[in-house]
């Protein structure tokens, strides 16, 4: 970023971004600075609440996955799988190894689709100086095509097990409706093999993007599993020693609402925390397949890292993980006797966390003895990240300096926000930025 810093930093600054673009969902940003100090900086998520938690009440457990998916078209697997696992826990069900493995594959599909889309369509134009991907495609057609190809590969993985990429229909409490026939798996394996080099190029490209440095203090939180990169099973861990069962989430994490937004803010023991690809890398790098760790080293990436923009590299590296690990799983594919276990409903409470593309998501389900929902809580990653994101913006803006032109301040804000890949549909919300210079 080359900037001419010739404005009076003590001027009144008001910046409004009434409709943030290239993020999922809709929201705004409002920024006010006076006498060289930031007075307020607020991300607003305006989308009205859709009240999912409420209208899940009274629904049968078998209806939950299809309804929960509709919270967010961008990460439906996260909603489906987290609710399914929470309810399976109520019913005292264990995942079969086949189901566990296939759930990872379908989740990898969602990661790959979402990460490739984010990097290609949302983030890269920021760093390369384009207003959008179409303009970028004129100058960098191969890069854009590669990103789209990987996005499509993610969709193929989603389709194999879920039937379609948005609101998949293949998942059910107990497992999957259908075990993919061998020939379909073989076709996907071929595609994954063919994409191996492409995704390595993609990681190198993403790592090489000219993004700013943004060192921050923060706590990383992610699902950690003893034997595999945490996605859909394990415990909640932080880099400050947190190590709890998912069921302890409500005791440690608290949500509160603030007046400028319909979103809920989440705090761990009273302070903000960070979720997402970088948090996962910070906690689970050692559990990545050797191949993925090697690539990171080759590219000079080191985790843990507190440079916020390493989120970009982490996201890209997870794309490679998705391809490599799905291959490991699918090359050993066997048809199961049955792709699901029949649930036997009983009353109780179940908690579960999984890693959505944007970070950890928590669900709590309370069911009655016939398996109907009494109460549901779903806490998406974006709202958990919101407090951290606002702090991040504050620090980044101050460091950058208010002597910069409004336009440059706004650009930086947007970059910082996009770096979280916020999903405002998820938090049931979108952003509009208003920056006030007074």
């Amino acid at each position, binding site marked *: 970023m080359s900037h001419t810093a010739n404005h009076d930093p003590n001027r009144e600054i008001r910046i409004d971004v009434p409709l943030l673009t290239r993020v999922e969902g809709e929201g705004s940003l409002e920024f006010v600075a006076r006498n060289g100090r930031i007075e307020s900086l607020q991300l607003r998520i305006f989308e009205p609440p859709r009240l999912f938690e409420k209208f899940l009440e009274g629904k049968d457990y078998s209806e939950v996955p299809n309804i929960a998916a509709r919270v967010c078209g961008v990460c439906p697997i996260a909603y489906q799988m987290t609710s399914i696992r929470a309810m399976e826990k109520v019913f005292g069900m264990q995942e079969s190894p086949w189901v566990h493995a296939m759930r990872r594959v379908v989740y990898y599909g969602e990661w790959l689709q979402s990460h490739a889309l984010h990097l290609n369509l949302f983030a890269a134009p920021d760093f390369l100086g384009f207003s959008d991907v179409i303009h970028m495609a004129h100058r960098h057609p191969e890069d854009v095509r590669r990103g789209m190809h990987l996005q499509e590969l993610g969709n193929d993985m989603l389709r194999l097990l879920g039937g379609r990429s948005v609101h998949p229909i293949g998942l059910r409490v107990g497992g999957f*409706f*259908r*075990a993919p026939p061998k020939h379909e798996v073989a076709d996907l394996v071929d595609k994954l093999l063919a994409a191996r080099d492409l995704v390595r190029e993609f990681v190198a490209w993403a790592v090489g993007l000219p993004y700013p440095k943004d060192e921050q203090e923060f706590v990383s939180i992610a699902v950690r599993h003893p034997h595999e990169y945490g996605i859909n099973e394990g415990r909640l861990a932080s880099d400050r020693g947190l190590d709890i069962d998912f069921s302890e989430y409500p005791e440690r994490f608290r949500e509160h609402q603030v007046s400028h937004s319909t979103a809920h803010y989440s705090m761990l023991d009273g302070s903000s925390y960070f979720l997402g690809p970088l948090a996962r890398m910070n906690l689970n790098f050692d559990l990545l397949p050797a191949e993925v760790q090697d690539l990171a080293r080759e590219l000079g990436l080191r985790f843990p890292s507190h440079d916020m923009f390493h989120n970009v590299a982490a996201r890209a590296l997870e794309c490679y993980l998705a391809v490599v690990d799905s291959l490991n799983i699918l090359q050993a594919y066997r048809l199961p006797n049955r*792709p699901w276990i029949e649930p036997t409903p009983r009353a109780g409470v179940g908690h579960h966390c999984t890693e959505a593309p944007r970070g950890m998501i928590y669900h709590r389900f309370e069911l009655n003895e016939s398996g109907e929902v009494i109460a549901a809580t779903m806490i998406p990653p974006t709202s958990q990240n919101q407090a951290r994101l606002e702090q991040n913006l504050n620090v980044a803006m101050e460091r950058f300096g208010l002597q910069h032109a409004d336009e440059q301040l706004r650009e930086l804000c947007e970059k910082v926000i996009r770096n979280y890949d916020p999903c405002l549909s998820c938090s049931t919300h979108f952003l509009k930025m208003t920056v006030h210079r007074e």
Partner: protein
Amino acid sequence: MKDMRYFPRAGLAELIAAIKESGYRVIGPRVEPGQGGLAYREIAGVEDLPRGLSDEQSPARYRLHPNGSQRYFAWANTSSAIKPFVFTPREKLWTVVRKEGRLHFEANHEVAKKTAVFGVRACDLAALALQDAHFLRGAHTDVFYRARREKLLLVAVNCSHAAETCFCASTGDGPEVSDGYDLLLDELDDGFLIRHGSTKGAMIMTDLVTQEASPEQISQACAQGELCRERQTRALPEASRLPGLMQRLESPLWDEVAERCLACGNCTAVCPSCFCHREFDSPLLNGKHSEHWRDADSCFSEDHSYLVGEVVRAHTRARYRQWMTHKLATWVEQYGRTGCTGCGRCITWCPAGIDFVDEANKLLSAEEEA
């Protein structure tokens, strides 16, 4: 009967292998994972056939149960007949390319695959003959149908088990296969009787190790067929009474059945003789060429009788009436016999469990009382 030969059960694998060696893909009855029931699907060999399974069918219900035997064909019928292998439910008819304002039409030249269908029933062969009459024998020939029809090898198996929904005896189309096959089998406790009905079939039989069938074996086969006939509890009214339906076009019974009918068209889709289809264009996004396709259609859908601004058969009553009177009465005018061969599929696969035979009987007896 003089050409009847016998081979032990193990010979079935050889028969399938011989057919495959002659270049056919083999379609046979298979248990459809996830969907239940038997369906005609490509099979690799005998291991894919439903050994020791029998079907239980009744209105809106189809279940498979183990029967404790080693037989492969101890069931009445599969969800579809031969129809999808000749009259494909969705296919491209032609493509048109637009270049400098000119239109270049090109018929679809997809080469039909040699296809052997294994386990074909008498009712399905009779229905195939009906479709042949429709698609091949008029002033215009459906070349797409013909290409596939010519590549078909039909391995029929005489029924030994009737489902509760079967009524081919009353339509005169079964349970014994009389013609239209290339090879015909009877499954016995320990093996099969086989005979050929065409030179294609005879050629394949030459590769097979067989023995002369014994009179006991032949009579066992006949007895199975007889049993099958006796077990059929349903019967359509006699053919001579069926035109009477056309005198009942205003019967209140049509309203009564329309209250239950979902107009989902499952009956027409599974019926082995139904032939309706519609055409549509599917242009490329960039508009540079367009494909012209056809889809199997149903007289239960609104497009079927659509005319600018109106639907001739707007109500289910009229749609059900069209289905039944066409099948049982007006078909005779078109092809010299009814369009129903007694397979019972429309009864089994109707989600509302509407019983075609029962409705026809009700309508006709109401007529006689009237």
